């Protein structure tokens, strides 16, 4: 230690004085050359860390992310332009690039500790990793995408009609690409759709519940409908969040009254919540929908838009005794939560009252291919949206 200090002290004495033996020319030339070599070397090294070969020198990168991109359009396409890892994942601006490089030093620890060294570990971290990148793209408006893709250079007329509508709107708002285009270069993480089973759980938890005659309940899950208290063959299925009134009970079944609408043309197999609104309450078999002993006809009205006659009908059917909800708000709370978590993974979800009840059907159908929803959650979210659509909301726009 003492030796080191004396060495530093000796160096400092030489450092602090004009050089006696090395000429100024040699000092400046030497420093100049060393500077050139250093800067060149530094940039070469930096660029080396900015190549795909460097990225995939780690197994977890090569076997997950790199494999996945190879089935996407950013790997091979008709124009032969390829996006490599750093094109999208390293900022091009120098200061942000340095921040990214410093941040990437964390990956070295990850590598040392083996944080994602197996497929399972990677999958369990995938959502977290994806969210980091999504946050970055959200903040910078998908800058790295837009180094190549520019709204100004897009010829909307060359797009399919459906794409045109969306892209024109996006361009107007200068929207961030990843608001919609998530999971285009790598697999999407498994989304948490646990809100689903929550409905099923609610339905199960209420088993053994005593039902009050004359009280109104709401279905939680898709619920089979029967002709009487014994018949095992079901006549149709109630969708979740459908209101019914308990009028009798027998054995393990409840006799319920369902006030609903159907189209008074054709079989009228689909039962709707309201006149001329495509909000499905239940679907029936052909026979059940024609069986006059099951329902009483009410009001009849014609829908001006379609020219179809609609009729209010009150069905009397049987359902199994299981979990039903007394408060519709509880169901809507679940639906709202599921809507927000599932849809916001890819985009900012539109306000419920942004569309009317019938438009939501098409909107929702167009989107469900992107997510993995089970039947109950699908139904309950759609119904939530329709029931809070501009048709029913006070603050519609």
């Amino acid at each position, binding site marked *: 230690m003492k030796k080191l200090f004396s060495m530093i002290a000796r160096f400092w004495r030489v450092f602090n004085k004009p050089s006696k033996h090395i000429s100024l020319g040699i000092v400046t030339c030497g*420093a100049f050359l*060393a500077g050139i070599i250093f800067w060149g070397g*530094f940039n070469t090294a930096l660029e080396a860390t900015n190549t795909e070969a460097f990225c995939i020198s780690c197994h977890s990168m090569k076997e997950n992310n790199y494999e996945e991109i190879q089935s996407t359009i950013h790997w091979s396409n008709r124009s032969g332009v390829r996006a490599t890892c750093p094109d999208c994942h390293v900022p091009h601006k120098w200061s942000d690039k340095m921040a990214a490089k410093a941040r990437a030093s964390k990956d070295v620890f990850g590598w040392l500790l083996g944080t994602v060294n197996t497929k399972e570990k990677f999958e369990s971290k995938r959502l977290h990793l994806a969210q980091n990148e999504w946050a970055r793209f959200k903040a*910078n408006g998908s800058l790295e995408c837009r180094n190549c893709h520019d709204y100004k250079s897009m010829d909307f007329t060359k797009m399919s009609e459906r794409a045109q509508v969306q892209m024109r709107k996006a361009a107007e708002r200068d929207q961030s690409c990843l608001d919609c285009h998530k999971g285009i270069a790598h697999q999407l993480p498994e989304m948490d759709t646990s809100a689903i089973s929550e409905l099923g759980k609610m339905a199960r938890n209420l088993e053994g519940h005593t039902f009050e005659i004359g009280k109104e309940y709401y279905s939680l899950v898709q619920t089979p409908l029967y002709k009487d208290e014994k018949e095992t063959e079901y006549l149709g299925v109630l969708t979740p969040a459908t209101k019914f009134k308990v009028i009798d009970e027998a054995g393990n079944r409840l006799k319920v009254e369902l006030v609903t609408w159907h189209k008074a043309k054709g079989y009228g197999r689909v039962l709707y919540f309201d006149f001329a609104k495509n909000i499905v309450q239940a679907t029936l078999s052909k026979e059940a929908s024609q069986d006059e002993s099951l329902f009483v006809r009410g009001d009849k009205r014609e829908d001006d838009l379609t020219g179809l006659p609609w009729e209010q009908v009150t069905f009397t059917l049987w359902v199994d005794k299981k979990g039903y909800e007394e408060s519709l708000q509880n169901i809507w709370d679940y639906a709202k939560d599921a809507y927000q978590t599932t849809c916001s993974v890819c985009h900012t979800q539109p306000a419920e009252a942004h569309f009317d009840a019938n438009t939501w059907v098409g909107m929702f159908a167009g989107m469900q291919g992107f997510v993995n929803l089970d039947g109950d959650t699908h139904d309950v979210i759609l119904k939530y949206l329709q029931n809070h659509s501009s048709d029913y909301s006070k603050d519609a726009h």
Partner: protein
Amino acid sequence: MKQQTNSTGIEKKGEWKLFIFLTVFLFPILATVSVFGYGFIMWMSNIIFGLPTH
């Protein structure tokens, strides 16, 4: 006289040693560290003040 030449030789050797040490090791290392430090500061400021916008 001989002694003086010797001490001049040591002095010269010391200067060259320091020169090489500075240009080849210390300054490049300091430069690299300061660039990394800059990146680190940018990273931390991103955490505090939010990610870069466009």
